[in-house]
């Protein structure tokens, strides 16, 4: 126990001496958080729109009003014919074009089932994300306009069933405004933890390899488990502190609700850290230099894990093979944990499969890494 403590104390002393490590662990999370919180914002607002209104009727003006009134679309110009739209989209001055053809007003006035009013919405597909969302908003606006039209045609007090259509009233739970920030910001916790508990410890172990102290230590009575725990526990503690730091920022600065219990979050974070610490140690047994450790951690582990975990891209949209592979990725479970605890207020009653998966992967990787590490000492 004293031997273990000696290693832990030494590790903290080293971390304190390292003028690059501490800023990386405190400033790093904050920068990542600001970047993802403010920049990685997929919510669409103020989409520049060019208008071609060939109808010029009160009805067409009312429709344009609907588009520009909500702040989602900004009218940036008007043209006489659809042919003139192209330069607007090519030059990026507009992202979406609304074309109201001649006869729209009449069609609205008649509103017969055989001749529904038609408008055309053209979107710049190069930025598929915002255009898709823009189109989504546009169809919502048009649907709203259509529904009102039908209602207006009805005789006062007339039968509600007259239109004969279902009316869809969506309710989005947990994140009613579909704020993408709520979706992305918890992901920062996962990324920060991978940095602090996977990349840093693997580099700390490899560094001892480089300077020869690892060999020196293997000629002492220090057991390999004491060495492994002594090297990993400090990063476990730092990881937990970073988790608290980012959680504080996420809830304080970005007003993402923490609906579940912090204790549950801490416990499941601990299980997640078993996997990242294990992977970090495993990497350290595979490489000789700190640069190799860094490269392996970032490019072979961290980036693919983030992509395949559902942290950013939904797993459901991936090809089957990738979906299966994602089951081996601890970040996938931790992403569920983060969103569950933050947004849904889930407890262990719901998240136990994630807890078990993390524990299973964590123990497997840690055992494997420790065995390899022990072998590498001999």
């Amino acid at each position, binding site marked *: 126990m*004293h*031997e273990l*403590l*000696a*290693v832990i*104390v*030494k590790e903290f*002393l*080293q971390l304190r*001496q*390292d003028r690059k490590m501490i800023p990386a662990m405190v400033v790093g999370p904050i920068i990542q958080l600001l970047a993802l919180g403010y920049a990685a914002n997929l919510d669409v607002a103020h989409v520049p729109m060019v208008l071609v209104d060939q109808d010029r009727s009160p009805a067409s003006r009312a429709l344009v009003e609907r588009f520009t009134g909500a702040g989602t679309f900004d009218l940036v110009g008007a043209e006489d014919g659809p042919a003139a739209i192209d330069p607007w989209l090519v030059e990026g001055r507009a992202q979406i074009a609304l074309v109201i053809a001649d006869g729209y007003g009449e069609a609205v006035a008649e509103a017969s089932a055989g001749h529904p009013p038609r408008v055309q919405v053209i979107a710049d597909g190069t930025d598929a994300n915002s255009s898709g969302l823009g189109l989504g908003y546009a169809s919502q606006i048009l649907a709203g306009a259509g529904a009102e039209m039908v209602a207006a045609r009805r005789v006062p007090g007339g039968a509600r069933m007259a239109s004969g259509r279902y009316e869809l009233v969506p309710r989005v739970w947990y994140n009613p405004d579909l704020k993408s920030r709520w979706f992305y910001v918890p992901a920062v916790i996962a990324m920060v933890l991978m940095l602090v508990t996977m990349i840093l410890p693997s580099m700390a172990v490899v560094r001892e390899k480089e*300077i*020869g*102290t690892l*060999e*020196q*230590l*293997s*000629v*002492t*009575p*220090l057991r390999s488990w004491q060495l492994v725990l002594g090297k990993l526990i400090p990063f476990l503690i730092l990881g937990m502190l970073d988790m608290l730091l980012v959680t504080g920022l996420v809830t304080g600065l970005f007003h993402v609700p923490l609906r579940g219990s912090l204790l549950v979050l801490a416990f499941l974070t601990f299980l997640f850290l078993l996997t990242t610490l294990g992977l970090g140690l495993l990497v350290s047994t595979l490489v000789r230099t700190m640069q190799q450790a860094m490269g392996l951690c970032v490019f072979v582990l961290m980036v693919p894990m983030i992509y395949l975990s559902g942290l950013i891209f939904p797993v459901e949209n991936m090809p089957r093979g990738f979906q299966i592979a994602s089951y081996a990725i601890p970040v996938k479970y931790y992403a569920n944990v983060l969103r569950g605890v933050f947004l849904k207020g889930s407890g262990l009653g719901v998240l136990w499969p994630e807890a078990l998966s993390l524990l299973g992967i964590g123990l497997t990787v840690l055992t494997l890494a420790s065995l390899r590490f022990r072998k590498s000492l*001999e």
Partner: protein
Amino acid sequence: MAAPALEAVHLTKRFGDFVAVDDVSFDVHEGEVFGLLGSNGAGKSTVIRLFCGLLTPTSGSGRVLGIDIAQDPEGVRRRIGYMTQRFSLYDELTVRQNLNFFAGVYGLRGRAKAERLDWAIRMGDLGGKEDLVTRSLPGGWKQRLALACALLHQPRLVFLDEPTGGVDPISRRRFWGLIDSLSADGVTIIVTTHYLDEAERCDRIALLDQGRLVALGSVAELKEVFAGRAVLEVTCPRYLEAQERLEKEDWVREASLFGDRLHVVVDDPEEGRRRILALLERDGNTPATAQRIIPSLEDVFIHSIEARGATP
């Protein structure tokens, strides 16, 4: 006689096809300063790493303080000290933090720890430098700190793998002073070096060449191989040609190159000198000189290695 502090019995270590240590046997007595010598890659460090339990022997066996290295490497590690040329210290930590850490690793605590730390600081003459960052220390200080760290747990046997590499001559001399006083306290010391002046300070030395033990004994014993013979140092302009010519003469025991000079071993110094000069004169390889010298350890080594090469 007491059991040897360390013994190697047909110790062999292979890495694939490469034989790093080839059937090496020797004993080291308690309190002895034992030197392992040889060129780079001769197998010195491998022998030490085998005895520290960092490597396991392919065949043969070794015992340290009566413990078999293959059976109880842990037991060996607890009882030995190990220091390498790399001075494996934590550069960013202070002298005291390094000492504290290694004391902790060796399970020292309380009063025993305090006593050993005091001892280490006195022994390494590190007083007043306790709070300096190790990185900022000159090589000689780092070397003494590394030795102090390796001795905190009072091992009865210490391995020093090229401990004086990259250190200035004054620090080297001082370091050997420490080695002598340890030995006087009964600590057995096994040291590798390729400085021959350091080898002369060892009680006994073993010479390794390509993994094999080619000579073993005290410096005086090893120089005995020249008993009844003389070593002549010869200078001449075309020394390569001269070496080739002299080696063919049956009255020449050995002719070796030492830089731009030749060391020639003959039975009779006067007779040899006359013959060498006459031969060089005939070849027009002049001006030439030949002088009797006291054989150095280097002569002994070259003799041992060449003698082994002649009889495979």
